[in-house]
């Protein structure tokens, strides 16, 4: 039923996730030893017991950003450095218990964007490798071009792995604390927190709206199901219906925010956004942080000195 609703291929990764696991929408799951929680298909956090999960969120956040920065700063052609960086990512994936397969599957969701780098393979001057005509143009694939393209793809692929490990092994609450620790303004962090708090509520609203739409209009997924007829009128009409639903969702959100505001007032809200005092980073995590940063710094230096 739900897979019917998500017949289109639009916004990744929302829909891909839904298509992969539509049953996750069904909601509350009881797990032994844990309170009844609403496991939402959107939340990438995977509660596991692992050294990576246990590491302080602030340290993980800083290390992940430093890793992505190192990848970005590694010069073109420093393949051994990329290999070493990948080994770091792989060891984090294995240590975290998430599994390499899980991370790589999620990383594939971000891959379509490499289309944007494909012209590099054809426009970089160098040894011609393959020539073929495409319409009026004669395209020349060069070896250097291919390497440059591979370089961009590898950078992107390594970076997204770090981001996935961070998001899958850190609760959002800890990410918020990490953002406070790196001095992201309090109002903005409060915004992130509020958004996360109500995201699942509003996604459920959106899913209800879509369920109502498909219940009203019926769906013919293939032309063979209803020959000569397309579901739901013209394109503009379909867009307008979707727009009406968006307006409806916004209206419900605004009404809800009024109720939230009143609830906040009754709990003593005075317009000031407050956050809990943060605990100092434990010494063990501090050591991990410095070792990690030193390692990344060494890799960066090596890349710059040998290939820069």
């Amino acid at each position, binding site marked *: 039923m739900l897979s019917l609703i998500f017949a289109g291929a639009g916004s990744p*990764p929302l829909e891909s996730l839904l298509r992969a696991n539509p049953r996750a929408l069904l909601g509350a799951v009881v797990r032994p030893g844990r309170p009844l929680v609403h496991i939402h298909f959107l939340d990438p956090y995977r509660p596991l017991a692992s050294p990576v999960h246990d590491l302080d969120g602030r340290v993980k956040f800083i290390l992940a*950003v430093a890793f992505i920065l190192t990848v970005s700063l590694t010069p073109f052609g420093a393949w051994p450095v990329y290999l070493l960086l990948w080994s770091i990512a792989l060891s984090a994936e294995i240590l975290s218990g998430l599994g390499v397969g899980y991370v790589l599957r999620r990383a594939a969701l971000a891959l379509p964007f490499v289309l944007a780098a494909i012209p590099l393979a054809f426009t970089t001057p160098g040894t011609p490798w393959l020539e073929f005509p495409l319409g009026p143009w004669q395209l020349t694939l060069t070896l250097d071009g291919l390497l440059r393209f591979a370089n961009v793809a590898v950078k*992107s692929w390594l970076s997204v792995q770090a981001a996935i490990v961070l998001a899958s092994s850190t609760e959002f609450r800890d*990410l918020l604390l990490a953002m406070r620790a790196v001095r992201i303004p309090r109002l903005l962090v409060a*915004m992130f927190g509020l958004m996360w*708090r109500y995201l699942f*509520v509003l996604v459920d609203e959106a899913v209800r709206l879509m369920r109502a739409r498909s219940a009203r209009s019926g769906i013919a997924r293939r032309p063979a199901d209803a020959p000569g007829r397309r579901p739901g009128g013209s394109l503009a009409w379909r867009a307008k219906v979707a727009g009406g639903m968006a*307006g409806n969702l*916004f209206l419900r959100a605004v009404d809800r925010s009024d109720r939230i*505001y009143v609830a906040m007032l009754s709990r003593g809200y005075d317009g000031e956004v407050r956050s809990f005092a943060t605990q100092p980073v434990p010494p063990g995590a501090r050591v991990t942080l410095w070792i990690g940063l030193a390692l990344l710094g060494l890799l960066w230096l090596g890349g710059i000195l040998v290939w820069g």
Partner: protein
Amino acid sequence: MHIPDGFLSTLVAIIFWVSSIVGLAYALRRTGKDLGERQVPLMGVLAAAIFAGQMLNFSVTGGTSGHLLGAALATILVGPWPAVVVMTTVVSVQALVFQDGGLLALGANLFNMAIIGVAVSYFVYASLRRMTRGASWGLFASGFAAAWSSIFIASLAAALQLALSGTTPANLAVPAMGGIHALIGVGEGLITVGALAFLYATRREMVGAAPAAAKGGRGVWALGLGIALLLSVLSPLASAHPDGLEWVAEQEGFLEAARTPLFNLIPDYVLPGVSNEALATILAGILGTLIVFGVVVAVAYLRRSGKPAA
């Protein structure tokens, strides 16, 4: 339009991080100063609603579908400064949690979607609303125009960032990104109009009135105009650059530029042969923008002067 990590050079990523931080810091200050405490939960929940609203898709053709992006709608509903904060929240959480856009590239993505998207939306919406004198058709026309131009201009910015980073030559990136997003923008415009129609029917006070002259709105308006003009001039210029390849290669070596003497770079940029064609494209860009605005203003004035007589 969410650029992942690896596609922007470090320098470009950092430049846009700094620009976004400056813009966002200003927006946060304005939001904190001008708006009531009621806005805090409103902005948070609206950000969640935009995220959830992006799931409301409609099939276009052959398995593809369109969906809302939301910068224009947020700008129309809560005004420019809170909309910057709302869109920043949406785009940041998408990057941080869902890997929709990279972390290092987040600065550029914020700049395109939160700052450019909102400023251009506000500029188009506020101008057209004022010109149409609060007529109800004006609401929908301005909503459509604001949504379309926010998507289109933001995609030009993304294309130029990719070109600056040496990832995609400008003469490919600009037409490709611009072309695709000109179509996506139509979908965004239609959905935005649908949402406005729903709100107009149910809660006219939320969208019916012409936008109150928001404090500092003039600044956003000017910023939107500036960005729209700059990008519509820069993009054809960049893509018409006859030596796009060398230009890109030079951008690729942007970091080395500090080491190479500056005069090595300059001759390639200001060759007289190049600047003629470049000048022509610049003029064409300015002319095109002026013509569009001329038509809009003329239509609005005709409409306005026609009304009392009728």
